[in-house]
């Protein structure tokens, strides 16, 4: 059981929870994720760790409300407990001094990006971060991102904040302006697909952090499998970060839809209860 000690609402559907998990708080590194389960009959879902406080023994989780489990999780309050939490899982982000790093975040992808840019900044990189979302309300963690970025570019689809346009436009403006040595992209699969296509055009080595359907999260089931460079990989143990230019995003998008009908039905049943 892991107690929730803080809760913050970023926007209508995006929440931050600070959760007691002393062992995870100590051992986690940038890029790691946890699996959580709520209640005896709950499902196991992966959530990337957005930060931690080893002294207090807590980790930060940022959750976007979409389906049954994320609704259940975000309806918990301070003092409530998450039934099961296990981690840190996956491989940590490879950090070194690349030079100039372009970090592109789509929506809640900003949360898992935060510890990565922190580590990159500390390793001596120049970090330029693009925060992109549909509108102003969905731009999250801006202040924290600014702490670890040399420059922050904000893009919104509707122009309600920052520059109007997609994440790829913000990325391309920077790439055309100065030399970029490395790029990292985190966000919805479709966003990562196009962000990867953008950097590929300019031959910039790029990592994408993937969030797929998982069950155990320790390599046991293969639900999270994707194709990278034509080879099957497991996101949970081989990832979650992969060479974005080698990832078959179309297959990943397809596999993310595996339970679409079941998810819609379950969500309707949940909301009617």
């Amino acid at each position: 059981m892991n107690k929730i000690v803080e809760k913050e609402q970023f926007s209508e559907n995006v929440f931050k929870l600070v959760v007691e998990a002393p062992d995870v708080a100590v051992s986690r590194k940038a890029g790691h994720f946890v699996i959580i389960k709520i209640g005896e009959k709950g499902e196991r879902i992966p959530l990337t760790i957005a930060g931690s406080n080893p002294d207090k023994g807590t980790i930060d989780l940022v959750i976007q409300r979409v389906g049954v489990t994320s609704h259940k999780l975000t309806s918990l309050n301070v003092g409530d407990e998450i039934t099961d939490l296990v981690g840190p899982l996956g491989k940590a982000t490879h950090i070194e001094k690349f030079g100039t790093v372009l970090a592109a975040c789509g929506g809640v992808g900003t949360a898992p990006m935060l510890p990565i840019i922190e580590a990159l900044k500390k390793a001596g990189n120049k970090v330029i971060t693009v925060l992109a979302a549909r509108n102003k309300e969905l731009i999250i963690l801006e202040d924290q991102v600014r702490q670890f970025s040399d420059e922050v570019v904000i893009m919104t689809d509707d122009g309600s904040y920052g520059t109007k346009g997609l994440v790829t436009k913000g990325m391309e403006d920077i790439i055309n302006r100065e030399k970029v040595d490395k790029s990292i992209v985190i966000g919805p699969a479709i966003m990562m697909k196009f962000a990867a296509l953008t950097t590929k055009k300019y031959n910039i080595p790029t990592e994408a952090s993937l969030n797929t359907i998982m069950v155990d999260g320790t390599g046991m089931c293969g639900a999270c499998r994707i194709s990278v460079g034509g080879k099957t990989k497991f996101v949970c143990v081989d990832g979650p970060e992969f060479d974005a230019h080698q990832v078959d995003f179309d297959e990943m998008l397809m596999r993310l839809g595996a339970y679409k009908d079941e998810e819609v039905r379950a969500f309707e049943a949940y909301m009617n209860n």
Partner: protein
Amino acid sequence: MENITDYYKSERAQEWRAEIRKSVKVKERTSKERTKMPEQEPTVRNKNSLEVNLGLAEKIAQSEAQRCIDCPDPTCVKGCPVNIYIPKFIKKIEIGDFLGAAAVLKDTNTLPAVCGRVCPQEKQCEAQCFYTIKLNQPPVAIGYLERFAADYERNSGKTAIPEVAKPNGIKVASIGSGPASLAWSADMVKMGYDVTVFEALHEIGGVLKYGIPEFRLPNSVVDFEIDNLEKMGVKFVKNFVVGKTATIDDLRAKGFKAFFVGSGAGLPRFMNIPGENSIGIFSSNEYLTRVNLMGAAHEDHDTPVIIGKNVAVVGGGNTAMDSVRTAKRLGADRAMIIYRRSREEMPARLEEVHHALDEEIEFLNLNNPVEYIADDKGRVQKVVLQKMELGEPDASGRRRPIPIEGSEYEIEVDEVVVAVGVSPNPLIPATVAGLETTKWGTIVVNDDLQSSVEDIFAGGDIVRGGATVILAMGDGRKAAGAMDKYIKEKIKK
């Protein structure tokens, strides 16, 4: 073990044994027919998740026990990986001392109720039975009797919690909570150690929980044994991935003196054929975990599972049988086994194959998938099968399947479960410096099941690469003995 023959001799000479032997003539014993296990009707059971085998009634068990002639040289014992003293427990059943029979089982086997259900007896004890090797008749139903005695004890409410030695305060840990670790933990706690079992999942039991379905091994049977271990003092820690949540080094710093790695063969194998990542194609691990561990077939559980109408399961082992029979129970019209060799070469327990056949499972032997075809949404729609024929025996001694060129044909499927084996879980080998592994990823151990790192022992599938519950348990016990010796020698120094 050099005195084991003498031990058997003296035990056999005991008055009660001699008396019961004399009470019924050998001819009368051997003229009895082997008991049939009462089971749920096939057409009823293939729609529910209740256990297929119902167990023997007391009188029937005693009658089956009478078939055992209590041989002077009990060859059956040699067929058992943990050398259960089979004639003794069977004779205890014959005289009606069922709790006594259970006690004999527990001398060498931590989980008799589990083994009575899932051991491949036809390849072990029953293969070495006097009836099999000398009379060419069906063997004594040793497995049924083992299950009977263990169930009797469990249901009697008189389960004896084994005595444990005075706590010695020495901390030891296992990684994983499957059969190898459970057997190891029982022996270690009995010797007085401070035992912690670390499990990555949210349930204790490993493959006994996520893998083997309820209709073959009810969770309540496993939980009962885990409760007993807890009563003996074993500590279970769930949601803890050794190597991730904390490393072996972290645990050493917390005072753990030795480790037993029983992390299993957790990595599913795929065939790497075109279309295998289509929606609706699962590893058997994923399919069974969703259904068994996550309760996906129940409306009130959040985890979903695809319910197929035409389900193909690829493979011929127990996991394949478990998967295909699960699919039938979840409502498949057509549930099929696709296996590249013939029925004779299938590695599954004989009973599982018979049960599957009774439950209207189709067997497509000498067939092998070569490609999957998906619809425009990426959902599997067809499997392309290639016919096979058998050639010369291969390294496993089984005749090698050879593809017949040009024999490809398609069948419609909306769900596929790939059950072609598993590889060792790489988590521990990858996070412990100096731990020697084979090219298959299994941990290298010596005869004492000690690895290249002296305080780390290992057993079960992480060493064997894919074996049985009983072999894993045998390893757990052996490692416990060796670990005890290692720790005691270490303290002396």
